[in-house]
């Protein structure tokens, strides 16, 4: 199908002057060239695309990187024991990072991995991203495959005791970052990946996660408080038999965020949970969670739990889909997206979808939007709790269901504190 002219023009404008990274092994060049070709074929998103109905992609497409004032430095997970890897404006920051070494884990820079003729990443780079284009185009992910120069490559061969923490820092007001992480969890291995910080005025991150049978991958992310940043992130995951994928994102402010998670349950009895809490204040705030879970094996469980707290004209978007393939009997799929609107200016747009081809499945989805419970608020105040504090308590209570999705109680507590601190500062 021919692309609309506006789309072609916008794509050309964005890509003009951009080149896929130089060097690299033959397979990496091939994957990048293939991505660039696919990207030109599908074009970058534009307003009229069904998948971008609620979120204007223009922020991600302006040929010139937008300027974003560097606000608070919000590293996150400071007190968590982790192997820290820092990227400043998208560039690996060796001085600020720990040694890339950890038991039961192979860890190296993406920039290094792609120069090696023989590397396991060869069989994964762009593979899940390409498969994830089924039914809807995700050109910003393809963009990432084509242009990302650096990131982390992680291969867990056993239970990795210490989480890996990727910290994104900002230095330049107009910096742009495109980062790619590749993750492979071997049979029975386990890894926790933490992400925090702002990264760049405009950040595009991509991640491909391949989980072998009995493997477990935990992902906990804090998207920073920097008011003006724009971020488009994609995570693609493929799950083997009896494996686990759990991802949680806490987003506090940020101008424009689109987080896409695309999961395929390939082996039986696998479990995938994706959850998030986003709190936005102000007309500039726009946060979009777009999730696509494909059940392609028997007896798998998936959960999507998203909460948004919005005020002062902030906008929250949720697009979530559960696709159950014909062979995926005994699927247990759950999806809930809820928003708490603290005033009448805030907007919440939700599009929950089910597409089911198997007959013996249990799938439920729901989406609600509501105001603060006045009776509960009065009850709290009648005990002496001031209005703003009472409201914070109810906000924390509202997002509690999403936070409960985090398996590690210590990490959940860290996020809860971050959230409480943010609420307090925003009064």
């Amino acid at each position, binding site marked *: 199908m021919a692309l609309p002219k506006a789309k072609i023009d916008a794509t050309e404008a964005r890509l003009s002057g951009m080149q896929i990274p130089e060097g690299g092994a033959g397979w990496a060049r091939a994957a990048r060239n293939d991505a660039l070709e696919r990207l030109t074929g599908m074009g970058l998103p534009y307003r009229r695309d069904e998948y971008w109905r609620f979120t204007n992609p223009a922020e991600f497409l302006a040929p010139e990187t937008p300027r974003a004032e560097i606000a608070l430095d919000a590293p996150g997970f400071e007190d968590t024991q982790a192997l820290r890897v820092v990227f400043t404006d998208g560039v690996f920051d060796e001085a600020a990072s720990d040694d890339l070494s950890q038991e039961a884990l192979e860890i190296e820079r993406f920039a290094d991995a792609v120069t090696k003729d023989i590397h396991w990443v060869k069989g994964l780079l762009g593979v899940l991203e390409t498969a994830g284009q089924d039914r809807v185009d995700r050109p910003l992910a393809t963009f990432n495959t084509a242009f990302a120069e650096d990131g982390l490559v992680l291969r867990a061969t056993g239970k990795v005791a210490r989480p890996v923490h990727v910290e994104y820092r900002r230095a330049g007001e107009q910096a742009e970052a495109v980062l790619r992480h590749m993750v492979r969890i071997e049979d029975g291995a386990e890894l926790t990946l933490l992400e925090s910080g702002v990264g760049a005025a405009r950040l595009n991150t991509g991640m491909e996660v391949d989980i072998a049978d009995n493997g477990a991958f935990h992902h906990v992310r804090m998207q920073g408080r920097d008011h003006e940043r724009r971020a488009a992130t994609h995570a693609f995951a493929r799950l083997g038999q009896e494996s686990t994928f759990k991802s949680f994102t806490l987003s506090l402010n940020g101008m424009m965020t689109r987080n896409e998670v695309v999961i395929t349950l390939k082996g039986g009895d696998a479990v995938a949970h994706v959850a998030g809490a986003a709190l936005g204040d102000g007309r500039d705030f726009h946060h979009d969670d777009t999730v696509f879970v494909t059940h392609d094996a028997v007896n798998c469980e998936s959960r999507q739990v998203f909460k948004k707290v919005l005020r002062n004209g902030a906008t929250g978007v949720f697009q979530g889909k559960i696709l159950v393939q014909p062979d995926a009997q005994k699927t247990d799929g759950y999806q809930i997206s809820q928003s708490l609107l603290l005033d009448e200016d805030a907007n919440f747009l939700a599009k929950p979808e089910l597409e089911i081809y198997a007959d013996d499945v249990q799938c439920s989805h729901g989406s609600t939007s509501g105001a603060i419970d006045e009776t509960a608020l009065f009850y709290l*105040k009648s005990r002496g709790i*001031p209005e703003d504090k009472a409201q914070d308590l109810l906000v*924390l209570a509202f997002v509690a269901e999403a936070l409960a999705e985090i398996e590690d109680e210590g990490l959940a507590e860290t996020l809860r504190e971050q959230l409480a601190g943010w609420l307090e500062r925003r009064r």
Partner: protein
Amino acid sequence: MLKISDLKVKLEEEDKQILKGVDLEVGAGQVHAIMGPNGSGKSTLSYVLSGRDGYEVTGGSASLEGVDLLDMEPEERAAAGLFLAFQYPVEIPGVGNMTFLRTSYNAQRKARGEDEVSAAEFLKLVREKAKDLKIDAEMLKRPVNVGFSGGEKKRNEILQMAVLEPKMCILDETDSGLDVDAMKLVSDGVNALRSEGRSFLVITHYQRLLDHIVPDVVHIMANGRIVKSGGPELALEVEKNGYADLMDEVQ
């Protein structure tokens, strides 16, 4: 302690007058009971005193120890020493009972310029009071009133009162839904708090509660007014004859 004069209240949203001139004075250390038919305005009075939205005061006044209550925010009234045990305690999913108690306690202390207490200190304080009311540790951990039985909710109200140690306690039908043993527990809890500096306004339908918590004065409220006041014997009379005779007498 509490002085209410000619208090008139209508609903904010509707043209409906609910309190039509309530006069009531509760002295320090006293226990007053209010009885009265359903819909006579007892809960409305308790809500208006504690500052709930949705009501408009069209006349009269209410003060606590000489300080005008009606101008204050609900949390300020609480800090000033007013406490309402709700007829229908509110469930708050996601907020732990213990967090709720401690936040309330510290907020009131802060409002009065006192130091906040640590989590450990507070836990000790609550455990003791909870034990007296047979509220177990598990109930303290659960979200506020969520999944509590009717009686557990009422006991939880009294626990809050015992922890916050208010000066003026309003109990709105705290006895309804309680079994005989729980009634005894709650009454003991209330009686233990009785002191010279603390007053109670007990709203109830049943004279039985007043056997345990013996009031100084009993008021009958009907159609938005206190229509009769007397000693404990007035409650017995209501129990025996209902409100019909009383109403006739008033009219």
